[in-house]
């Protein structure tokens, strides 16, 4: 694609200032829809080179990066799951679809708990970059079909693998039958997203700011401070939610939040949040379905549906 063909601005949603919006009401009068999105990922030890992004900073075998992520699946997953069970939170899993084949035991544990599985591509070492539109369509469909075949339900949501996107990513996912995206970080409420097919499609707030990997690896936070910022975010969104419903997501990774020196901070934050009465503890899919069914006008879906 030449520079001239690249868009200067994103055309996926209309500008909509946070003040004076129509009121969002969540089920049972809740002020805030709260969801936790554990990323359950598989990183390959020897992925093919992608010309746009190197999968690993170290030469093969990239033991440091690979082994800590494997720790997440071997050790961290069940530890995090036990904490979510304790506070009545069903995870909405951002899933590397190939994990259905590599680690079906993890899929079974989550399915038993009626957790949601949404698509996070095939592997987190395979990027959207460099794929043609047809190849990206094939990759998205492969992930959808693999997850559907493993759990019996087609995924509703998408977080592009390793947050790698093309100009077509969101259109292709809507056309594949998806309902919501986690890839847009522009708001604390759901937003109608205009895709080329005009199908009902919504952005559900996921959060990079509260994402444990951003907090621990990019911001290098001390564990207890991570717990503190989660509580501060909740206090603000819960207060504002009295005027119009808000969404709060904690995206996690089983190799970060589940480390034994970090889990306590996360657990205390969950205890705090779920200790409030007007919180709808839910999943990404349930928020998306509710928004598309009951809040079309509030989220900006009463204008042109398509781009």
């Amino acid at each position, binding site marked *: 694609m030449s520079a001239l063909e690249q868009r200067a601005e994103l055309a996926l949603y209309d500008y909509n200032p946070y003040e004076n919006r129509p009121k969002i009401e969540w089920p049972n009068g809740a002020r805030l829809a709260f969801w936790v999105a554990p990323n359950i990922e598989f990183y390959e030890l020897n992925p093919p080179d992608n010309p746009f992004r190197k999968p690993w900073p170290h030469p093969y075998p990239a033991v440091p990066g690979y*082994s*800590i992520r494997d720790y997440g699946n*071997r050790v961290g997953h069940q530890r995090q799951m036990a904490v979510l069970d304790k506070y009545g939170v069903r995870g909405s899993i951002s899933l590397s679809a*190939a994990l259905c084949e590599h680690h079906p035991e993890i899929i079974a544990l989550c399915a038993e708990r009626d957790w949601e599985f949404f698509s996070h591509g095939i592997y987190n070492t395979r990027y959207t970059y460099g794929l043609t539109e047809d190849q990206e369509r094939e990759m998205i469909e492969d992930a959808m079909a693999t997850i559907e075949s493993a759990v019996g339900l087609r995924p509703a949501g998408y977080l592009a693998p390793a947050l790698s996107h093309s100009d077509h990513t969101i259109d292709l996912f809507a056309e594949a039958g998806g309902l919501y995206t986690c890839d847009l970080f522009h708001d604390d409420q759901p937003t109608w997203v205009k895709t080329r097919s005009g199908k009902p499609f919504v952005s559900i707030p996921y959060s990079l700011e509260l994402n444990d990997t951003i907090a621990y690896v990019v911001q290098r936070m001390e564990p207890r401070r991570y717990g503190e910022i989660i509580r501060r975010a909740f206090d603000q969104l819960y207060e504002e939610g009295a005027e119009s419903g808000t969404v709060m997501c904690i995206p996690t990774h089983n190799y970060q939040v589940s480390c*034994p020196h970090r889990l306590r901070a996360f657990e205390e934050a969950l205890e705090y949040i779920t200790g409030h009465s007007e919180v709808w503890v839910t999943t990404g899919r349930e928020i998306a379905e509710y928004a598309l069914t009951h809040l079309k006008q509030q989220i900006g879906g009463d204008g042109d549906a398509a781009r």
Partner: protein
Amino acid sequence: MSDDLLIYPQRRYGMDHERYEWSMLQDREPVAWPDGKPLALWINISVQHFPLSGEKPRVAPPGALTMPYPDLRHYTLRDYGNRVGIYRLLRLMSEFDAQPSLAVSGALAEHYPQLLERLAATPYEWLGHGWNMLCMHAGEVDSDLEATWIQKTRVALERFTDQSLSGWLSPGRIQTANTPELLMSNGFSYHSDWVNDELPYLFNTERGSMNCLPSCLELDDVFVLTQNLHSEDSFAQQVIDAADLLIKEGGEQGGRLLSLNFHPWLVGQPHRIRTVREILEALLVERGEAIWHAPPGHIIRAAKP
């Protein structure tokens, strides 16, 4: 664009390589530590030699010299560990009757025989820790050269200790594709480079099975203090939080392992050594009833991976 990007040759049950079997910690037969204690504690001290000159490896080790030659600043700061810091740590370990292991650069046998004689006078288990901190077992290192590093490290260290070395910790916890085979050929029976578990497990090589006893990176002093830039107090708090969680899990589910790694050039500094004291006090005294503190070789034997 190449179709390789959508071809997945290792997409199958289990791991995408042959080094070890896939299993989740919580699904394995519970491990029982001696006296029914819920938590085993492994403390390692990495005694390292950073050369003043030499070709910089493709992967820099934690603590690498960074300035143009002669990088007196970093060379001498690391050297501080071998002159001062290690003696502070040895004194503390002795005071608490701790049993750390010592992962030692082979080159110290040539540079500081007096230090190695002192270390050999302790009852602590030694691990090979590479020839020096420029000899990184990473990427396309020639296999014969890598074999030489491993072999001469064993020979050099065994000139001082009566032990026959069985454990290995690569500088920077990284390996080449050949490292495990070369360790087996040189008589090592475990390495601590893969941080993917909290208990020892069987690690496959083309020359038979060895063990991996994972050395925790996320609580390594260099990682917490110099990479994450957390405070010393937070470091101690994180170790204690980890111990409390693992003690609880160990009581409910089966023995757990906490591994700590200290660097004399870092925590041997006067403003940091008290943090090591606080950690030893919290683990070995306040939580002594729940913790089995032992050398790594004993921990592997008790875990029977």
